[in-house]
């Protein structure tokens, strides 16, 4: 299925938000989900809900974290 992650289409087999996050962040030098936040179709999904929140074809996902800012 195709999921739009951060504005770009991605092919994914992830069943839920947690799997999608793992898939997407493979290759980033990170220890865990702390510091990340995810929105699904314009609504926040809390970390406690990542595993139980399913993703389906065409979903729009935002995966963000804090960066330097003013």
């Amino acid at each position, binding site marked *: 299925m195709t999921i739009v992650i951060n504005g770009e289409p991605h092919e994914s087999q992830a069943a839920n938000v947690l799997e999608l996050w793992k898939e997407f962040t493979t290759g980033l030098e990170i220890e865990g989900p702390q510091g990340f936040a995810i929105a699904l179709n*314009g609504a926040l999904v809390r970390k406690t809900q990542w595993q139980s929140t399913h993703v389906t074809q065409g979903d729009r996902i935002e995966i*963000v974290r*804090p960066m330097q*800012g*003013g």
Partner: protein
Amino acid sequence: METKDTLKIAGVELSSRLFLGTAGYPNQSLMTEAVVASGCEIVTMSIRRVSLDRRGSDTLTLLKSYRFLPNTAGCETARDAILTAELAREALGTNWIKVEVIGNREMLYPDVVELLEATRHLVDDGFVVLPYCTDDPVVCQRLADLGAAAVMPMGSLIGSGMGVANPANLELICKRSPVPVVVDAGIGTASDAAIAMELGASAVLLNTAVAKADDPVMMAAAMRYAVEAGRLSFRAGRIPKRGRAEPSSPQFGLVGS
């Protein structure tokens, strides 16, 4: 002379009246040194999409002993600002948010209609809202009425270094505001920060003036002293301006008289 003069926002006591941005420094090491030199307790952060071709920022780890103030910089609608605030709260574990809603990309000028809407919603949702706004006393009053924990009127355009463009407005805002006034944006050099504080601001938020200075760490120290000096000067009470000279030395016993 020195009586306790802490700034309190949403019940949190802050000993520094300087908030520092973390963007645009030559490197992470200079950024960290500048933050330390500034003596600030609050640092601002943005919330951005994770990029696969960019290594993760370790800013969070470097600055973990500071209080984070995430922003909604770049948002153009209340809806986007609200979602960004929710993401920031989840990512950083703080309910403090600098709400910034931009109405014009070229000027980075606040859209007060969207800002009021975002502030109303976020206050209701339990956020400590610090809105970046125009230097308009009525807008600042409206934001305070909605429950903003502080108001953050612009000194001048973001990144412009033009200082306090409308000191008369800013003084009015500071005199009337029921919540702390944090002058945000436009500070170019230390005297700008001192002027903002002398006009009665509770604090100053700046970034570019330090990050883009030839020596960011030295400028951070300059800002620290400027904010402290400006605050002391405000509390001490300046003399009135007058159009004529007023001798400071005694006028009697002049030699040769």
